[in-house]
């Protein structure tokens, strides 16, 4: 079983590496959206510092939204998804492996580049750790919740727009906790509470979302 899960992860990473433009699109989208804020608002350091966590988090939300349809779409188009459904491994675990691989190529780069982007906002350097940590905990949740939506809208016409409507409201708690942790740290009251809540959300989503997505996949493949 571990062989099958490792195979899914390695395969998805290999596919992403051979089609790196897809990965770069999401990353560039994130960089551009974040950079639009300082350009639009102008050089007011105090204001920029205040909005930094929110702006970066909203951009991360939109970027992960952009990457979502790719989790299952190509496997659905070429029939691989049927074989995954018929695989010898419980489907929920295979889905978890796919979501993990998806996060590695679409979520992790956002986490790694966010400290650099935060510099544009004159964000205090000692708080960069909190911001990065909140993204590291939060973006996997976005991928996990998004996988359910991606599975439900699989093969639907106009599925992309529907997916946003379905998933964005569910992202709200993650956004509030994520942006809130860095804001609280900036206000001097520490962001631990929000980070703990994000961690709890991650554990919860990690345990249940893959199975929900598995059920949704079976329904959309009928």
């Amino acid at each position, binding site marked *: *079983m571990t*062989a*099958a899960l490792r*195979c*899914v992860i390695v*395969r998805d990473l*290999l*596919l992403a590496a*051979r*089609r790196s433009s897809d990965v770069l699109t999401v990353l560039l989208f994130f960089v551009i959206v974040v950079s639009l804020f300082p350009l639009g608002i102008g050089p007011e350091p105090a204001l920029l510092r205040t909005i930094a966590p929110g702006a970066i988090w909203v951009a991360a939300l939109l970027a992960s939204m952009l990457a979502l349809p790719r989790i299952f779409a*190509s496997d659905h188009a*070429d*029939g*691989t998804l*049927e*074989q*995954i*459904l*018929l*695989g*010898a*491994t*419980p489907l929920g675990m*295979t889905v978890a492996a796919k979501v993990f691989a998806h996060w590695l190529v679409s979520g992790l780069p956002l986490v790694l580049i966010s400290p650099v982007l935060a510099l544009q906002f004159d964000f205090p350097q000692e708080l960069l750790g909190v911001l990065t940590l909140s993204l590291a905990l939060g973006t996997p949740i976005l991928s996990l919740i998004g996988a359910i939506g991606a599975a439900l809208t699989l093969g639907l016409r106009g599925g992309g727009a529907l997916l946003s409507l379905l998933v964005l409201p569910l992202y709200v708690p993650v956004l509030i906790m994520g942006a809130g942790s860095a804001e609280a740290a900036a206000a001097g009251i520490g962001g631990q509470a929000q980070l703990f809540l994000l961690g709890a959300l991650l554990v919860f989503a990690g345990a249940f979302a893959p199975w929900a997505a598995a059920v949704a996949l079976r329904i959309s*493949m*009928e």
Partner: protein
Amino acid sequence: MQTTSGIPSLEAVDLQCARGERRLFDALNFTLRGGELLRIAGANGSGKTSLLRIACGLLEPTGGLVRWCGEDIRRLHEEFRRQLVYIGHADAIKDDLTAAENLDVACTLAGTRVQRAQVGEALHRLGLAGSEDLPARVLSRGQRRRVALARLVLSERVPLWLLDEPFTALDAAATDGLQGLVAEHVSRGGAVMYTSHHEARIAAEVALRIDLGSGPAP
């Protein structure tokens, strides 16, 4: 190999299938045992693919049930899925992977461990020698089909084969090769169920046939 003792058997009980408003088939009963070959015939849209998808559990029948070795497949989950190979209409081949990688991934997902050498041999047997390391993108439709079917060479210990239009896009030599593979599997005691518009020349002691008729009933 089997979890239940005795000959593996796939049994359809009172199967009923409707797609939307149209009823495709009704009260369909059959039993397919190890060592038997079953061909599903019928016009386009008569429900051949649906029947195959029901048999492997991808599609829920409108009524009735499918049993594997006497047990409802809905209760067996992975235990049943580990004992079948389904080759569908879509080849499940990734453009960006090579032929060998595609075959390796397909087998690993199905829970069959294969060595690199075995993968090469299987592709060789399907007439793809020399194309192992080419990305599937540059392969022709027939060659891609061969990559998908090469999985059968590595699945000789899997008792149930479900093949949806396996001969589509294959040339004469590949068709002969595939017929040989199926005949071998049946003589080993495996069960094979396939859909086809044409009668294949496959040597089998017991060759059953289900005709789903000319099309959906109104």
